[in-house]
């Protein structure tokens, strides 16, 4: 039976991404499960329960699905989003014991989330976490999904993260934070981001940041390309009407990208493949030094799922399929990174390629050798690649590539966040809302933590870049 993963979706953004994630996960598993039995692969995210909510035996692949419950906790300090989730088509995946909510909201204030709501709901949250952990046979990872710009996701989210580390130190903590864009409508988002980032530096094992600007650009690009392709085919009226449905709201498409990232990251945990990659291997290979655990990701192939998958499972556009060379080129292009960054121009400390679907080993090695020539790797590990291949393709696509990189360009993202923080902090603007809950020194400590990590990446650029003569490999003489 595969290892289990518990998802914690905190705040409005976290819950909206989380809901898209569960929707996509259900579709993905349904597409690979013609008999509608509870497959072992499903036990990573779901439990099979009876009408009384009790687990129905071990997942052997032959037991029919009775009721599916997600291994998740939904936390929000306002009720609006959670109410929508429970009324929506995936509401059945959750029961009341998995929800923690309040009415007032955190007011876009990290300190209110971290110092007021966190402790207020500490016992409730940790008891529900313990309950979810007890329902697992071999829990591997907590996945925290939240945004850094608001109050609940940032404050309560990082509070919970800290306590997960204290109570379950052997369970990995993966975090998918959404960084605020420069024109974010929350004025205090720079404060919330830096204060959260300091917590992620200390308490997360692996962070895969997302940025709204980058997600929005990818969605726009994919939309434009698909329109071009559709127009270039002389589509009959029948074909037009049989085509897949477009997702209306841009936020939904962006949330779908984030959800796809999580599915592609965990596919090897769930499905078989010639070269499996677990989440513990991601942390082992991608994090050379403990505090440098911020990974930049890019998605190619499965981003074609940016149209809402209708319940009928209608296939997406087949006329916009990327071949392997295109996937590899796109993966290292700035246009497909999920944060606003250009890793190709900076130094790679490590890189992982997680492929899904119809992929040849020869193609992988050939393309890897090709892209490697254009990238700068640390001189002490020029072959710093981790490769994984899962046989099961993403939904409606023949293949996809998720590239995760530990690249020094993340320091620029932090520096830019820091600059926005300082613009407010120099004027002590809005500070009094925070000092109601924390000492001002907390701001200084957080800034130092972030500066420390920026310094580590800057040092890496200067010390570990440059060429080194490759050492001779052991020659095996026949």
């Amino acid at each position, binding site marked *: 039976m595969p290892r289990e993963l518990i998802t914690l979706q905190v705040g409005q953004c976290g819950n909206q991404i989380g809901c898209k994630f569960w929707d996509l996960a259900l579709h993905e598993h349904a597409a690979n499960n013609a008999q509608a039995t509870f497959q072992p692969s499903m036990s990573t995210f779901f439990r099979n329960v009876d009408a009384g909510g009790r687990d129905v035996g071990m997942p052997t692949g032959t037991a029919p699905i009775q009721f599916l419950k997600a291994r998740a906790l939904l936390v929000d300090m306002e009720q609006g989003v959670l109410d929508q989730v429970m009324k929506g088509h995936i509401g059945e995946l959750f029961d009341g014991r998995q929800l923690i909510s309040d009415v007032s909201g955190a007011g876009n204030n990290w300190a209110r989330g971290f110092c007021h709501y966190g402790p207020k709901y500490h016992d409730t949250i940790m008891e529900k976490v313990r309950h979810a952990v007890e329902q697992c046979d071999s829990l591997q990872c907590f996945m925290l999904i939240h945004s850094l710009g608001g109050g609940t996701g940032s404050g309560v989210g990082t509070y919970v993260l800290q306590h997960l580390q204290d109570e379950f130190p052997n369970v990995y903590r993966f975090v998918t934070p959404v960084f605020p864009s420069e024109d974010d409508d929350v004025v205090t988002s720079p404060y919330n981001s830096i204060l959260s980032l300091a917590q992620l530096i200390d308490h997360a094992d692996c962070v895969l940041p997302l940025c709204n600007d980058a997600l929005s650009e990818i969605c726009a690009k994919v939309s434009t390309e698909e329109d071009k392709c559709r127009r270039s085919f002389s589509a009959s009226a029948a074909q037009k009407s049989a085509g897949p449905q477009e997702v209306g709201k841009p936020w939904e498409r962006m949330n779908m990208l984030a959800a796809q990232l999580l599915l592609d990251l965990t596919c090897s945990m769930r499905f078989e493949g010639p070269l499996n990659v677990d989440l513990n*291997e991601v942390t082992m290979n991608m994090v050379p030094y403990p505090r440098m655990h911020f990974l930049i990701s890019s998605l190619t192939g499965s981003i074609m799922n940016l149209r809402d998958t209708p319940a009928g499972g209608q296939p997406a556009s087949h006329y916009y399929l990327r071949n392997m060379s295109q996937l590899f080129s796109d993966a290292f292009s700035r246009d497909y990174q999920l944060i606003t960054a250009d890793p190709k121009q900076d130094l790679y400390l490590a890189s992982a390629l997680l492929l899904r679907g119809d992929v040849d080993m020869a193609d992988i090695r050939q393309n890897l050798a090709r892209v490697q020539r254009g990238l700068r790797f640390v001189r002490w590990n020029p072959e710093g690649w981790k490769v994984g291949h899962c046989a099961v393709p993403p939904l409606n696509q023949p293949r996809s590539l998720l590239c995760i990189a530990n690249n020094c360009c993340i320091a620029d993202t932090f520096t830019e966040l820091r600059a926005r923080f300082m613009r407010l902090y120099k004027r002590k603007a809005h500070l009094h809302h925070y000092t109601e809950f924390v000492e001002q020194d907390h701001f200084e400590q957080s800034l130092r933590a972030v500066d420390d990590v920026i310094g580590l990446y800057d040092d890496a650029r200067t010390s570990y870049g440059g060429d080194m003569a490759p050492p001779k490999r052991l020659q095996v003489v026949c």
Partner: protein
Amino acid sequence: MAVRPVVATVQLGQCGNQLGLELHDTLLREAAASGDAAFLRDTQETFFRTTETTSSSQGKLVARAVLVDTEPKVVEGVMETARRSKGWQYDARNAYHQQGGAANNWSFGYKHLGPTVWSNVADMIRREFEAADMVGGVLLLGSLAGGTGSGVGTYVTEMLRSEYRKSLLLNGVVWPYSTGEVIVQNYNVCLSLSHVMQDTDGVIMIENDHIHDICTKLLHINHVTFSSMNSVISQHLANILLPSNRCYATSSSCSNHVKSRERTSRRSFLN
């Protein structure tokens, strides 16, 4: 009929298990293709055993193999594949897997997982040898880049050496691609080999780069997969492991081969 020394295979990690599946199939196929009934019988005796025919079922050919992994999917998949598609199968009692994985971490595999694995696997190997009239040795298969094949494999090698001092111990190790397959592969390879060299009688070196070139340049395979590479590796291993002469009364060709190399060097790296 002369008694043949048997070889038990320990398949470690994803690579070791996938390769072991292909190897056993290749050994049988090669022996069957020779058209020599005695050769086939001896190959079957060396690497397989036949379960007893009962009133309800025919005797089946069961590989003298132990399957070990630190996560469940591969072992279960390999056993199922053998059972469904091949004319032989694995013994369900000889499969051991954990849940958490070795995280590509040699030290985690060696220090933390190794003792637990050995406490389960020792009995499986002992049972295989007790079912045989003469013990030839153990062949361990695994990759050097990951955590299970390298770390757990190193521990199991040490334990096998201390348990079976006089038996032949061969390690079939797969080297990762030089362009990168696991980021910490260099650590795992060096740590494994430095330990294994103390205890093994021979290390059969299999390089992914080399095998990949064979597939593309010699065999002109357009779509190289791990399955095609495992076929080539299995062929290579079968050349060493299959009885190479018709004097079946003497010891296996494999131990002769290793002993002859040992006259020239203290430890033998075979390629």
